[in-house]
């Protein structure tokens, strides 16, 4: 390799010390000396190989190129020969040292190797370092091959020693990284004794500079320089059969000699190679130009530096020939040369085709090159930088903020690429911290002051970040600096740096102590793999005003520190049942538009990281199969509109349920460990703009495949309306028959108005009309329509007529005059119609322990605060079927409860007062006497039994099997008349949905069971658990309040790890993530990243382990 040749040549030239900063494509040169130095300094080697270790070659990776060159200059002044190695941009950093020492003097030889990178394979620019020769007035070599480089290094050492000037050897990637055969010579073991001469040249003061400049230019005219110029300006192809000449330099010479030789065109052109380009070999070039060419083509990569010199010579000497260069046949000052480019140039210049070897390209190969997936470099599997970026991504949500992240040079610059995309700027090395403070000042003056973030690698921090940080502290900038401390200079191949020296010869500098010393108050060290703790610290540093620094410290995967910790007995596995599978419904075609919310929704992952309470999604199921997990996460994300849509994916009544749902989804845990779904539903459904927009369900109706089937729904209560909502979205034609003059059913007529705003409910119900559902009001079953007729005329019928006939107590009916008694439904209806059937100041006895009883009692109280309300029920407080919440409200409104009681006898007193004797339900013994003015029975409802004459009904008059209706195979039942799920609005909704599933099974071979069945079942078996009231969340603190929770379940639309983490060991096959164990480094971070909890460590079974290798 060219770089190896350079190192070998320096050894042969007797180099005593090497000073370098790593950087592609120069790094291999320094690495060789690093290795030699380590080898020679090892005591065991010193014992074993005394002759090889007698005068060790000093080596260091200095903290930056400026220090490297300064130290190399000083080393040389101390009479020890030095080599200084860097990449193209390194020379910019070092140039201050170069530009003045030339006016002074060095001692022992000093050679600088600078490696350019035309085409920017691994650099931030493709600057042409050849300018440093003329700019600093130092001799410069420009080798074309590894063999050239090898020879020129040796010549450079000799020359530098003679003229006491640094000499530069400039290579390019294609010279440094090319391998070729080089014949080695002997290593020069000449021992230079350190010595310092007190020369006047060592003191550079203005009075001496003019003379020094003249002296410098004279040095370039000395005999030794001229001899070398002559020696390195070679005619590589000579022919007297041509009038065409080429002057080329560097790798261009390699390309054209190959092309000319392979095609046997060596006599078609004369080629002059310029190996030494400063000072310019004027006389040699002039001699070549005078060979009588018509044309001369100049071939050099990047700028037309030589071309311009040649044009000057031709002009000065009045030469009559055409000089071609940049601009000829696609020759540009940008990018690197290639075989194809120079082939084209030569064909045009020599006017002959280069197709001698008749290599014919494959037919239509372009077709196979189209759309090939790119393969950009990525951070390694297990890289701590990815962990830090991921943390930043969650801590600093970029989509929602204007926060600027200033990046820097190094491996972690890959964080700018997808999927991380966590950098806004990358400039030259060390710029990040200056960029952040400069941007901060820009915004600070415009009153939009905000914290700016700088991200810098540990190596870069020492290279040039430290002084910028000092400046930030000094100027009181408000910036956060994240130091990506992976304990090495990663990008260039894991070199040591002052923060991670690894060798006893270096003193390690602790970044934390260093920064403490600068007076940085907010200073955190995090282990990015400890993702929870790190997240907190990162947030704390972000919130701090002033300079805050987070040192993200974890070793690069290539370091022993990382490798030694890997437990090879473990593997990482992904549970395919949890990855990309929906835990909510098996039928993935069900509307679930926003489970996953916007593409970069990070809330699920963030919740996993920071929540105090993690709740598996199946603990908070909704009988209507609403994706509570998606709903909750949309709110976490601040996306309230999506939250409403997620409700509407499954049902119509977001606002109604937000108001009156008895939230069975929250009932099965204690109040501190459930997500307050109902409260959240209320908050998001109350936002009018979102609430009123039904465009998405409308669109679903519009896009549904028409089934050309008609369905009659009888009863426009919540069950019937919900059934219609699902049917119409599945392409059915729906007609709803309703005996009242408007839709709504029990919610409209029986729920007292103070419990909810009915206008929202009416609006929701009305949407069905917009969706194309037909309504026929004032149409009663058994009167205007008959079941027989409906069953005949429609493909299916869903009966959801509800139970609107109140049960009564014979004793009361027979004893109490009708003016002093009523039933709950009649009363609530009159209440909602604002009729006053009770005299103010009355004592009212409500009999019953269900929700109607409580609604009745509360309504009676609302009629007049002077009314005294007593509720008598047979159940105890804990067993009464009414929702505990409602009971609590009632108690707070001074409604009196007499539990475990029933009416034994009652009578009407002389003054019309009603006397009621209550006995204990349990003991059947006397309890108490009550005097009251009015009795309302609220012991439940029934339906007209004549409707179901032939049907099996249970003791509550409910149809036993909700999916079949004996006698009519196409009639299905929903709502209160179906057994079970009769307690609540959500139960009614769910039963309507369930009836639709039954309809679809019968009409379109739908194969899935009702997806809310489990929650519905739970609702039926445990209809009225006790519930404590939660502290109310108000709109203002909704985001903060809910951050405590993580309601998680697997989601079919999840692509979080691929979209946001992107570990190269993660492969997505058939929609599921797999871990490629051949690439995995077992860092285990993906386990924390997966919001579905699908990834885990697993011990590899013994037999799978390969037997230990024997060394």
């Amino acid at each position, binding site marked *: 390799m060219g770089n190896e040749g350079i190192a070998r040549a320096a050894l042969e030239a007797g180099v005593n010390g090497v000073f370098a900063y790593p950087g592609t494509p120069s790094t291999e040169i320094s690495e060789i000396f690093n290795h030699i130095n380590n080898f020679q300094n090892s005591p065991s080697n010193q014992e074993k190989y005394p002759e090889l270790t007698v005068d060790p070659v000093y080596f260091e990776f200095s903290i930056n190129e400026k220090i490297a060159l300064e130290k190399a200059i000083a080393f040389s002044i101390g009479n020890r020969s030095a080599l200084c190695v860097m990449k193209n941009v390194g020379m910019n950093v070092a140039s201050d040292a170069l530009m003045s020492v030339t006016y002074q003097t060095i001692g022992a030889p000093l050679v600088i190797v600078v490696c350019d990178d035309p085409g920017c394979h691994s650099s931030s620019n493709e600057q042409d370092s050849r300018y440093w020769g003329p700019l600093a007035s130092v001799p410069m070599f420009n080798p074309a091959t590894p063999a050239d480089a090898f020879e020129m290094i040796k010549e450079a050492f000799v020359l530098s020693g003679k003229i006491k000037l640094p000499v530069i050897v400039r290579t390019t990637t294609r010279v440094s990284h090319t*391998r070729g055969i080089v014949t080695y010579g002997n290593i020069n073991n000449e021992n230079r004794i350190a010595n310092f001469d007190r020369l006047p040249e060592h003191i550079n003061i203005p009075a001496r500079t003019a003379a020094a400049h003249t002296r410098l230019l004279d040095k370039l005219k000395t005999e030794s320089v001229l001899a070398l110029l002559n020696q390195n300006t070679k005619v590589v192809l000579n022919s007297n059969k041509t009038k065409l000449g080429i002057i080329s330099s560097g790798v261009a010479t390699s390309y054209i000699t190959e092309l000319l030789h392979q095609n046997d065109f060596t006599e078609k052109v004369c080629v002059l190679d310029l190996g030494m380009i400063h000072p310019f070999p004027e006389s040699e070039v002039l001699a070549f130009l005078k060979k009588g060419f018509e044309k001369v083509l100049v071939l050099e990569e990047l700028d037309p530096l030589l071309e311009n010199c040649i044009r000057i010579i031709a002009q000065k000497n009045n030469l009559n020939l055409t000089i071609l260069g940049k601009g000829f046949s696609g020759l540009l000052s940008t990018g690197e040369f290639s075989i194809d480019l120079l082939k084209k140039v030569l064909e045009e210049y020599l006017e002959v085709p280069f197709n001698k070897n008749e290599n*014919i390209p494959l037919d239509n190969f372009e077709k196979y090159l189209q759309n090939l997936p790119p393969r950009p470099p990525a951070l390694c599997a297990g890289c701590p930088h990815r962990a830090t970026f991921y943390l930043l991504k969650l801590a600093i949500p970029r989509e929602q903020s204007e926060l600027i992240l200033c990046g820097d040079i190094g491996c972690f610059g890959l964080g700018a690429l997808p999927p991380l995309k966590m950098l806004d700027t990358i400039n030259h090395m060390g710029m990040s911290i200056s960029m952040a403070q400069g941007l901060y000042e820009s915004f600070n003056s415009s009153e939009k002051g905000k914290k700016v973030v700088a991200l810098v690698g540990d190596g870069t921090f020492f290279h040039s970040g430290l002084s910028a940080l000092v400046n930030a502290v000094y100027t009181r900038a408000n910036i956060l600096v994240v130091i990506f401390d992976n304990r090495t200079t990663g990008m260039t191949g894991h070199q040591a740096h002052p923060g991670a020296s690894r060798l006893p010869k270096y003193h390690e500098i602790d970044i934390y102590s260093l920064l403490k010393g600068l007076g940085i108050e907010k200073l955190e060290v995090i282990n990015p793999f400890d993702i929870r703790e790190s997240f907190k610290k990162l947030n704390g540093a972000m919130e701090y005003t002033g300079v805050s620094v987070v040192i993200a410290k974890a070793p690069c995967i290539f370091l022993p520190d990382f490798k030694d910790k890997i437990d090879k007995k473990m593997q990482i596995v992904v549970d395919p049942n949890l990855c990309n599978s929906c835990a909510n419904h098996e039928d993935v075609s069900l509307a679930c538009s926003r489970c996953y919310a916007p593409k970069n929704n990070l809330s699920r992952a963030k919740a996993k990281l920071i929540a105090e309470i993690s709740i598996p999604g199946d603990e908070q199921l909704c009988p209507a199969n609403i994706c509570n997990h998606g709903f909750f996460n949309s709110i976490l994300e601040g996306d309230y509109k999506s939250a409403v849509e997620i409700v509407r994916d499954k049902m119509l009544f977001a606002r109604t349920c937000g108001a009156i749902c008895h939230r069975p989804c929250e009932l099965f845990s204690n109040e501190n460990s459930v997500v307050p779904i109902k409260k959240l539903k209320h908050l998001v459904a109350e936002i009018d703009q979102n609430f009123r927009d039904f465009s998405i369900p409308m669109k679903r109706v519009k896009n549904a495949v028409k089934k050309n089937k008609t369905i009659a729904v009888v009863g426009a209560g919540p069950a019937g309306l919900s059934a219609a909502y699902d049917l119409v979205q599945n392409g059915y034609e729906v007609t709803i028959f309703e005996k009242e003059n408007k839709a709504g059913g029990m919610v409209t007529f029986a729920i007292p108005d103070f419990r909810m705003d009915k206008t929202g409910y009416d609006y929701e119900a009305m949407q069905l009309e917009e969706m194309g559902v037909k309504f026929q009001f004032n149409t009663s079953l058994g009167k205007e329509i008959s079941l027989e007729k409906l069953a005949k005329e429609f493909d299916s019928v869903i009966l959801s007529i509800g139970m609107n006939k109140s049960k009564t107590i014979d004793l009361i009916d027979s004893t109490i005059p009708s003016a002093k008694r009523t039933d709950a439904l009649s009363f609530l209806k009159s209440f909602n119609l604002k009729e006053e059937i009770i005299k103010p100041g009355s004592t009212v006895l409500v009999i019953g322990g269900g929700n109607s009883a409580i609604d009745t009692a509360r309504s009676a109280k609302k009629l007049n605060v002077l009314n005294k309300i007593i509720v008598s029920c047979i159940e105890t407080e804990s067993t009464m079927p009414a929702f505990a919440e409602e009971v609590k409200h009632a108690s707070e409104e001074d409604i009196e409860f007499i539990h475990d009681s029933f009416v034994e006898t009652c009578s009407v007193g002389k003054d019309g007062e009603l006397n009621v004797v209550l006995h204990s339900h349990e003991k059947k013994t006397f309890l108490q006497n009550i005097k009251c003015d009015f009795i309302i029975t609220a012991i439940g409802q029934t339906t007209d039994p004549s409707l179901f004459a032939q049907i099996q009904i249970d003791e509550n008059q409910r149809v036993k099997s909700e999916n079949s209706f004996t006698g009519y195979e196409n009639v299905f039942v929903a709502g209160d008349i179906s057994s079970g799920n009769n307690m609540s609005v959500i139960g009614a909704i769910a039963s309507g949905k369930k009836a639709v599933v039954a309809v679809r099974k019968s009409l379109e071979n739908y194969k899935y069971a009702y997806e809310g069945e489990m929650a519905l079942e739970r609702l039926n078996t445990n209809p009225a658990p006790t519930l404590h009231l939660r502290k109310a969340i108000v709109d203002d603190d909704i985001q903060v309040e809910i951050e405590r929770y993580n309601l998680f379940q697997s989601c079919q639309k999840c692509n979080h790890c691929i979209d946001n983490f992107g570990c190269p060991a993660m492969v997505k096959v058939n929609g599921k993530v797999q871990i490629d164990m051949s690439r995995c480094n077992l860092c285990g971070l993906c386990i924390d990243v997966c919001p579905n909890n699908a990834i885990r460590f697993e011990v590899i079974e013994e037999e799978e382990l390969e037997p230990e290798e024997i060394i």
Partner: protein
Amino acid sequence: MLVCKKILIAGVGGQGIVYLSNIIVEAAMLSNIPVSVSEIHGLSQRGGVVTSGIGLGEHTTGFYGTAGIDLLIGLEPLETQRCLSYLHKNSCVIFGNYRVQPYSVNAQMAEYPDINSFAKYLGEQCKEVVFIEKFPEGIDAVLFNVFLLGRATRMKDFPFEANKIEEAIINTVTAYHKEKTVKAFKLGVEFELKKQSA
């Protein structure tokens, strides 16, 4: 006169591309054939593309251009396909089906090409094509490179005898890995394509 003057090895960082080219260089030097290599491996450790061009004979560099490669050794199918423009109708290709899925494919921004149809196309277009659809069991994935090189030695235009390559392997490999490496190489030399189809 060598038929095969330019060899290209292509793959993904970590697959041992540079190591393979070192073996071929060693074999060339053992055979007194001038050799030159050009590698591009700027960010190889980070999963990027790595290619190594080898030129054999006088005035031959490791640089390569359109239709300039006589033998392509592909360690990864997608990267093999990416080198298509360097092939010509007398080229020989050997490549293995060891996929390394790039991020763009995982993220569903791009599709991994259909390698079987590509292999078929190559077979129709080139002089000799060997596609190892499935590596035999018992070879460590890191030694697929040497296995492939072993199989390549049986190709018509391969410029070295198998024993020359074996000697080169022994000269370049560390003692610790020698046995395994030589074994994988020999498995490659003896590998029968018929077995694979059975």
